[in-house]
């Protein structure tokens, strides 16, 4: 059973406000180690530097979008096993299919409540304690 307080999560979004909001929501469900990156490229650098337990990434980003990041993560020797949840808009149905093929563990539709966030993480990581 993963312990929420020790999980290291990387939040990737080009909008600072959305990153902060996601961080706050993560904190509400007890996840305190949150790294941030503002695009896929920065995220990849972070993922290569330290062990992560989870990546939550937006899709729409300049530089390197969420899918490209997912593929890069899955191709990286050190990071390829890190669970990956893709943030999507409510219209991004087809995107989720692509993400599944590329190896996403789950998806999360914006905007989301702390409950939905917890549910989505638990579907991947098992029940949080």
């Amino acid at each position, binding site marked *: 059973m993963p312990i929420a307080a020790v999980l290291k999560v990387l939040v990737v979004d*080009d*909008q*600072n*406000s*959305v990153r*902060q*909001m996601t961080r*706050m929501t993560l904190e509400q469900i007890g996840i305190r180690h949150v790294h941030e990156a*503002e*695009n*896929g*490229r920065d995220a*990849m*650098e972070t993922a290569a530097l*330290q*062990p992560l337990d989870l990546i939550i990434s*937006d899709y*729409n*980003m*300049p*530089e*390197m979008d969420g899918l*490209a990041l997912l*593929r*890069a993560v*899955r*191709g*990286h*020797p*050190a990071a*390829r*096993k890190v*669970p990956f949840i893709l943030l999507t*808009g*409510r*219209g991004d*149905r087809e995107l*989720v*299919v692509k993400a*599944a093929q590329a*190896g*996403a*563990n*789950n*998806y999360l*539709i*914006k*905007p*989301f409540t702390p409950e*939905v966030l917890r*549910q*989505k993480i638990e*579907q*991947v*990581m*098992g029940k949080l304690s």
Partner: protein
Amino acid sequence: MSSLEQLKQTFFDECSEALQQIELGLSDIRADTGTEETINAVFRSVHSVKGGAGIFGFEGLVKFAHIFETVLDAMRSGKLAAAQDIVDTLLRANDVLTDLIAMSRSGESIPSDFGADCRTALEQILKSNAGGQPEDDNEPAPAEFEGLDFVPVRAEQFDGSDGGEAEREYRILFRPKPELLKNANEPLFILRELRKLGTLDLVVEADRLPPLSELEPDRPYLGWVGALRTTADKKQIEEVFEFVTGDCELEITAVDTDAGAGDGDPRADAVGAAGAAAMEPAPAAEAEVLQPTPPQAATNAGADTNGAVPLSPAPAPKSTAAAATTTRVELEKIDRVVNMVGELVIAQAMLGQVVHSLPEHLSGRLVQVLDEVVHHTRELKDSVMSMRAQQVNAVFQRMPRLVRELGAKTGKKVRLEISGENTEVDRSIIEHLGDPLTHIIRNSIDHGIESPADRITAGKSEEGTIRLSAEHRGGRIVIEIRDDGAGINSERVLTKARERRLVSADAVLNDDEINNLIFLPGFSTAETVSDISGRGVGMDVVRRNIQEVGGRISLKSERGRGMTIQLALPLTLAVMDGMVIRVGQETYVMPMSAIVECLRPPGSDIHNLIGTPGMLKLRGNLVPLVQLRDLLDIGSSASSSEERVVIISDAGEGTRFGIVVDELCGHQQVVVKSIEASYGSVPGIAGATILGNGRVAFILDVEKLSDIASSQNIEAGVARLAKAEPKAATAAA
């Protein structure tokens, strides 16, 4: 402010950036100068606004952004052509979005029918062109996509073997030497790094560990041997030890687990290095995107797989690249650094004076070091100032909307071309640019650009053009507003000026002088006063605004061809180029921007008119003189009149005057300190500064000085152009 409130502010700041991107992008698309990435960037920006608005609960904003985004999506996927009228609607949609964001920011409630026209227009576009309606977006976001066949993948089931890379085993031996610790490396971190590469199985060699009594805490006694199973190649493993090679015993040997792979013999090194690339089984389709490539390469790779060719060979992602590597710092902090640098500049100037006053045998080496300090201080100052600099785009971006709205209101067709929007200038200057620029552009559209019918009659294209540009020139920022309208009608201007008694009836003026009359207070030539410009606030206010920040405005007009207004502004208000002058025992600083020329005229050129401080005959013209000594009430001056220097100054209003001083002490950069903040406003004094000798010197407000002088001169009978009769001024307003 609660953290949520702070986040909302951050969101709104991001919105401003997004709006700017949208405006720029759509303008590019409209002008057909966009690339494939342009529409994507616009879409992304609207999408970001929508996403953030959803998170922060701005429903009205989400609703509108959604339909806006849907149209952009249709355009981006090629279902919708970027026709002029559609792009115009999108530009209008951006205006509505701008208003909605402003309302959300200020906490106003948004009327339910706000932007309804535009919304309908967007829906119409979708219905008739893209064959669809946007999905209704009013429901709260679902947790799942209904009916989507997606099973969340549990992390532990997820073995990551989809990459298909084979794991190899390496034997690792790692024995740190004392130098490793001395060089501030930590074996534990290295081992943790190593573990990230795969499955690490290590055994500690503790046999060198001495009894506790003999243990020296700064010596490494432990070593590690073991095996690492990883998909990484030898080079990647070696990289982990990159900083400690030489400071440890290290062996990394590939172990032959599968037939044919690796060999474990001394040749392993060569295989490790050279074979690394070959051993990476490249998943063909994804090869390019897999590696974190530089942005350019990634974009190109993406475009290629779509089978599309970029329009131009290297479409530089204009502002996206700049936006990606920024950090937000509170303005106050930067202002504090700017102030401290100001102090440093002063202290350094003082040091300079001390050093140069030393005898040479003492100062020799000091001078060298001081030169270094001067050099670095200047660089420090420049970089700090550049930190506070903003792109003029902050102001320019408001203009397209202005032009659109005024064009619609006046029934004129106007195209705005913007260049140099990335030119940077101190934000204190930016703040002073908005109003003048708005006014000038209003004027251009209202009085300059002709109606479509008139333009065709004049043999011009139906659509008028206003070019707005900015560039750095000679340590200043020069902003130019050029239109291809009718230009100034000199006869009418002169007639008006005479009617209002702004010039005497018999004055002979050349075209340039006539054109500059529009800068006089209370001047307005529009036949009818429209609600766009000409409501009393005239070009005189524009000029005053520009002059207040040490700028100059100039105008060129060609009858029937158009008009160009040029604003030249200092790059910053905190540091200024000044001329240090002496009058009697007092030292003052005069802004270089106010100085036209300095000369020492022969006594015969100075004509003493009764009751005036004199007139200088300069190249055939008479220039009124101002005795700074009298004006500022400084005791008698030491130098004889022959030695005095006259500074010809442009006080604005098209007139020049000469300021008589005793000595020019030199040109120097000065840090402007406000005296208003700590003392109060003093007429004729713009501020103060500290000179290299540690003395405080006042900075003269040249324009004000000319006002003071002229009010004194009026009694003496010297009439001045600027002093129009109050009656005339009211009539004009």
